[in-house]
């Protein structure tokens, strides 16, 4: 039978199975292979808060969604073209978003009564006709994998764990992907257990062969490489990109890098990543808690290091008091908050943007600091780098916001050339004659950085209010007001040191959609589409949330309506309303998931009228 290959502009695929089924692994591998082929990709890993919930249950389902495209894309897709469901629970929780007539591959071996029951199915969906509106392929993957691996004489338990690669093999055949990268992944991942290398390779090939041999699949598909900007690319998650951004900033500023951190989902990978780079002189300190983590960073900053701390929402809540100390002592550091679903422990593995106000105000007293948010996984590098630049130049703690979605999501990243990175100049104070701990630089209003070990600059800092210039403790009431204003002014002035806003679309019009953080992808996709439909809608994306860009007020006034989509109950929208007195309209989604571009499209239609 000759293979009919249909060419698609883009395709969305979702793997879903038990937490132990290895869905993240094969999903990630399909992403890497596609990126290497030259597709643009967007991914959304989605896994439970338990390490491994009981097998076969709904809470135990782990999903990995991947959007592969031949054009520039910005989201992990919405409705899937294909769903691979390894058990009934995976089918149950994911079917809703499979497109009508979409491809549904299920591991039919697992549709036994116990599993059906665990997934709360009354009858077997493979038999009751409920899947008729899809192209459903029920494949006995367990059985087929066992057969394919029979020769190896491995236990069933080991063999059954290979069926994820069987499924991947099928998808590879279906979407005409090369197996080269998957082969080398298997070889390196199981290097210490050669029998597993062979087993998984066999499973992978068996999956592809199954599609080739059976006559079930009439079509196969391809997605041509995307036309990305020229450059060297690699696939990267937001958390890895942040780690690299910090190393780059330390390297360029010639500061030593210090991270004080306490593990927390979904931020831990930054700690894991940075722990590896000891030869870059990176010092990571796994502290006893978040307070010790941020405090150790304050100590490192006092000592002249490029100091970091990384966390997620509940951890940021704990760090508030110490961030206040860094503000009072005017020490440079970067606090990364990878937002997750709240309040409290909330939904630890889901995404949310609900810590913006906490970043602004989660401390006692008047304690302003710069806030930056990354817009997508690949933007995390530059955002981290920029956060460091500002922290050092202005002697201030900076909060960098990302979220679970872009932290774990991956996409192609155009790897920068080191020589193109912005300069980060550091000058430690040296001269005992002119040194005063709180004598500010006229331009930046930054105080000098005098580090322990420097002869003649011995001085004391602390959390009590300090006298201008000398830095001595001062209870003088007017000095307090003056210093409060200077701390605020120093941060406000940073607005003069950031690039102007780029408007995507017309410079004025009916509607402006304002994004921040990870709403970037869905917003851009939606607005682009609506503009193509001829609607008067533009979008801007705000990386610098505090201080806001100087030109923002002007831009807002040029549009009749302003829409602010956020994965929270409406936070940034209030900042805009309070500051510019514009009737900005919130669009909110609090479902632990990023926006679908269609949701924003609908809102745009609603605001502009459907005409």
């Amino acid at each position, binding site marked *: 039978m000759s293979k009919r290959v249909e060419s698609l502009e883009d395709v969305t695929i979702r793997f879903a199975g038990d937490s132990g089924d290895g869905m993240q692994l094969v999903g990630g591998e399909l992403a890497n292979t596609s990126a290497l082929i030259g597709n643009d990709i967007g991914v959304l890993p989605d896994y439970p808060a338990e390490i491994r919930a009981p097998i076969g249950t709904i809470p135990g389902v782990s999903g990995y969604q991947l959007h592969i495209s031949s054009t520039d894309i910005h989201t992990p897709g919405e409705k899937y073209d294909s769903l691979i469901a390894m058990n009934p629970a995976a089918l149950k929780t994911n079917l809703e978003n499979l497109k009508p007539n979409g491809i549904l591959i299920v591991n039919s071996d697992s549709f036994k009564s116990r599993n059906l029951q665990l997934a709360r199915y009354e009858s077997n969906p493979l038999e009751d006709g409920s899947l008729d509106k899809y192209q459903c392929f029920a494949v006995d993957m367990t059985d087929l994998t066992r057969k394919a691996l029979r020769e190896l004489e491995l236990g069933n338990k080991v063999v059954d764990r290979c069926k994820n690669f069987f499924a991947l093999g099928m998808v590879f055949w279906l979407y005409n992907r090369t197996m080269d990268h998957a082969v080398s992944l298997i070889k390196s991942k199981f290097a210490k257990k050669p029998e597993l290398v062979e087993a998984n390779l066999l499973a992978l090939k068996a999956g592809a062969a199954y599609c080739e041999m059976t006559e079930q699949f009439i079509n196969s598909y391809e997605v041509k490489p995307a036309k990305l900007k020229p450059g060297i690319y690699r696939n990267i998650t937001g958390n890895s990109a942040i780690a690299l951004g910090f190393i780059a900033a330390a390297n360029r500023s010639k500061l030593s890098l210090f991270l004080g951190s306490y593990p927390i989902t979904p931020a831990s990978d930054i700690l894991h990543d940075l722990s590896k780079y000891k030869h870059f002189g990176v010092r990571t300190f796994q502290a006893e808690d978040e*307070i*010790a983590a941020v405090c150790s960073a304050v*100590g490192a900053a006092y000592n002249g290091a490029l100091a970091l701390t990384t966390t997620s929402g509940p951890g940021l809540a704990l760090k508030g008091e110490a961030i206040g100390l860094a503000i009072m002592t005017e020490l440079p550091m970067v606090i990364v908050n990878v937002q997750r679903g709240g309040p409290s422990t909330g939904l630890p593995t889901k995404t949310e943007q609900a810590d913006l106000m906490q970043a602004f105000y989660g401390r006692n007293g008047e304690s302003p600091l710069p806030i930056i948010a990354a817009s997508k996984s690949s933007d995390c590098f530059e955002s981290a780098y920029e956060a460091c630049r500002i922290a050092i130049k202005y002697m201030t703690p900076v909060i960098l916001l990302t979220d679970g979605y872009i932290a774990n999501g991956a996409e192609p990243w155009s790897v920068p050339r080191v020589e193109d990175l912005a300069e980060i100049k550091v000058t430690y104070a040296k001269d005992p004659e002119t040194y005063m701990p709180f004598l500010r630089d006229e331009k930046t209003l930054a105080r000098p950085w005098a580090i322990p070990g420097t002869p003649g600059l*011995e001085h004391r800092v*602390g*959390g009590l209010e300090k006298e201008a210039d000398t830095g001595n403790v001062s209870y003088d009431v007017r000095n307090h007001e003056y210093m409060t204003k200077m701390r605020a002014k120093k941060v406000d002035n940073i607005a003069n040191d950031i690039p102007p806003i780029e408007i995507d679309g017309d410079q004025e019009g009916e509607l402006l959609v304002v994004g921040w953080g990870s709403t970037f992808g869905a917003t851009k996709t939606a607005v682009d589409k609506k503009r193509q439909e001829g609607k008067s809608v533009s979008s801007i994306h705000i990386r610098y949330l505090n201080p806001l860009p100087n030109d923002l007020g002007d831009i807002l006034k040029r549009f009749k309506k302003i829409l602010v989509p956020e994965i929270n109950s409406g936070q940034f929208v209030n900042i805009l309303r309070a500051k510019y007195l514009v009737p900005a309209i919130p669009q909110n989604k609090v479902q632990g998931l990023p926006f679908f571009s269609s949701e924003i499209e609908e809102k745009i239609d609603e605001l502009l009228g459907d005409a």
Partner: protein
Amino acid sequence: MATTVKEASNGDTQLKLTKKDFESDQEVRWCPGCGDYSILAQTQRSLPDLNIPKEKYVFVSGIGCSSRFPYYMDTYGFHTIHGRAPAIASGIKITNPDLSVWVITGDGDALSIGGNHFIHLLRRNLDINVILFNNKIYGLTKGQYSPTSEYGKVTKSSPFGSVDHPFNPASVAIGSGATFVARTMDRDPAHMQAIIKRASAHKGTSFVEVFQNCNIFNDGAWSKYTEKSTKQDNVVLLEHGKPLVFGTDKDKGIRLNGSTPEVVSLTNGKYSEADLLVHNENDTDSTHAFILSHMMDNPNLPAPIGIFRSLEKTCYENALNEQIDAAKEKFGEPDLQALLDAGDTWEVK
């Protein structure tokens, strides 16, 4: 603020610093009569002998009367937030192991809000010196009971008497794996100076508890141990290699009955010095130090003063730096571009 260091090196050269070199220009703001004055003075007197250039000292404190200390030292200093000095000091020591880092703290600061950082510092064994001013009260907030206040203590926040059993700071420290534990008092300047110098010399976290009098909110809390008339009978001075003898006429000793210490008379002929517990600072087993640490909890036993334990063990920052050196050795000069370009890359033209 200009340094008076004659030679800015840390080598054999004698730096010739004096007490005055360590006095900052800030007015000292403790109540008249407060024990903190003595601790400040003994510190300023001891440091010149350590022969460390003064720019290498960093004094880090939390919040409390005691924690105002760094302002009065003409060294680098950081008056941080309540309870967190050990964590901040850790960040300092890790990023520059060459500094002489001191944590100044109170019984509330170290053992109440700061308890966790305190025990974790001790287990990690960073080469930091911790001086705890134990006045058994919250001074700065005007007199509430602290984790070292005695059971039943009547204070502002315990008008009917506290129902908290106190910590014994030295026992907590030893239970947490401390490698250097010592005790001294504000009223014994010479002893305190000796202890400060030994604490500085120890590589690893040195923990020094100082009996400190708060004459405003807890006057006389330690008088049993510090007053001439009662001191001899209530304090036993620890000396390495020597038996534990005390009393006005050196007429009493401490003997182990099983693992329990008891007071014996050296004059009634039953016991002699040979029967007594002999002090060994360097015992690798922490039990000896633990026994000494909680003798004070028993009203029939004297309080040991001196160095309970001094044991070498890898310091966190040294081990970390060895890993960094080894990694550099192994992977060579860091190449940022190579790092960014690592992994599976592809080129778009």
